């Protein structure tokens, strides 16, 4: 699972695919050139690397994702929690709120999420 880790720039490239998939590799190269000023060969190199990592697939010139962005983000959060707070969400929240307190809206949102979770668990 660790292999999914992407750098900040690779993430921007991945965003192009997630936002516009399915798209041809040529179009991906064009958009990368627009956004990142990358050469075509660079796009293809990075695409191949991400495909090898199992995130995307290049099926005869058409690029699609194997993992949605939401799934990827959730994986990233899990990794972060494991690496920094030994997997403990409460510990993370405590650390997060130590810096600045939660707003009323955030509390309401959290309450709603917990309620929904309990409902679906039953």
């Amino acid at each position: 699972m660790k292999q999914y880790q992407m750098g900040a720039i690779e993430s921007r490239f991945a965003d192009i695919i997630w936002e516009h998939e399915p798209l041809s590799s040529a179009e991906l190269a064009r958009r990368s050139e627009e956004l990142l000023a990358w050469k075509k060969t660079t796009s293809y190199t990075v695409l191949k690397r991400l495909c090898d990592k199992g995130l995307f697939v290049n099926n005869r010139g058409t690029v699609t994702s194997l993992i949605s962005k939401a799934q990827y983000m959730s994986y990233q959060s899990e990794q972060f929690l494991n690496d920094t707070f030994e997997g403990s969400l409460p510990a993370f929240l405590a650390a997060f709120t130590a810096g600045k307190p939660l707003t009323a809206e955030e509390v309401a949102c959290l309450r709603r999420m917990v309620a929904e979770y309990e409902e679906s668990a039953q």
Partner: protein
Amino acid sequence: MSTVFLSILEMSFYGSVVALVVMLMRLLFRRAPKAVIVAAWAVAAVRLVCPFALTSAFSLMPTFTDAQQEALTLTLPGETVTVPVTPSVDHGALWLTGLTALWCVGVAAMLVYTLAAYCRTRKTLREAVSVNDGVYECDRIPTPFIFGMLRPRIYLPSSMDERDREYVIAHERAHLARFDHVWKPLGFAVLALHWFNPLVWLSYVLFCRDMETACDERVLATLGTDSKKPYADALINCAAPTRRIAACPLAFGETDVKARVRTVLRYRKPALWLTTAATLVCLLFMMCFLTDPKVQALEPAPTIPAESTTATTTTQPQAVPTPPAPMTYTQKMAIESITPRTVRVGETVTVRVAVEESRGIESGIEILLYRESEDGEFVAVGEAVTMTLAEGTAANGIYEGAITIPAGTALGDYRLRASYIPVSEKPAICTAYTPEGEAAVTVVQS
């Protein structure tokens, strides 16, 4: 190519001397602005690659004199022999070629390594994305650095802390302002030529460190001492886990971080007197070590004897004085009288020989009575007899000698030969030579 290698060796020696002085200066003047030390390193680099130098009276460079020797030619009657002065000259040439080849291999290895590192970095940096004018971000680089000599760009790791960015960029811009992206590769080129010299390696490492420190000082001078703590933090955050010597990337965290952090935290804007004094010392240093001492060429040795000759310093670009002409001399010999021409067995033949010999050697003349037999053999009568100087000098005089015909000598015609006693002294060329005197003598019945 061998001459190039030899001159590299020579420059390596002189350059090492200067490098040692710079190292001494570094230790003594720790509080001086590091930019001055970097200039001193430049002097050492010049000495390592430049075979020529102006002369001045202030020079402190050591010099050597070397004697020149050339092959001497010895002409003997009937044959010419050339005597090389260094008998093992063939071995020497072989060694030189071997070492030159080895040196070339070393230089090539260094250049290949650099080229490989350059290509690898360029490939990685294709994925960089522009952030600002001249500043780029890249995922896959461990530390910030500058890449490119003609159009240098600053590259930052994308995972770098936002707060450190300001200081890192300031540091790299200071490098660019000082043209460090040119000096560092040039320094590496000098190192490549002198790869065999550990002092040059040490000098390069210290030079890189001093360049970074000079850069740190410049940044802090611009930003102010309030920036010391956050700047030191940025330094620690960006420190590379491994230390490698690379020519092209000017990495922010490449060199010894601990020492730099310490220097940064202790930084104080140097007093004007210190800066001025340091600059003056540096100028003095340059005068002493960028120039060579004035040397007078010694008098060429007289043509006799022919061995040790003129000495010149190797650093003077003037042409070497032509080697003195080989020693020459003239010889003239003539048999003045043989008494009697017809001699009986048991009697004595007295011979007088007139000699003119420009060297005035006193090895002397000897006379021999001999005949040539039917089968071409030389048969001598007794031993050769050494003549004695009767009149005049060895240079211009008359020698006298006597041969007694021993009993049992065959009768008949003989020849009396007068010749110089062979001399095993300094060889020379005889320019005028008249053959040994010879005359007929008849031995008759006593």
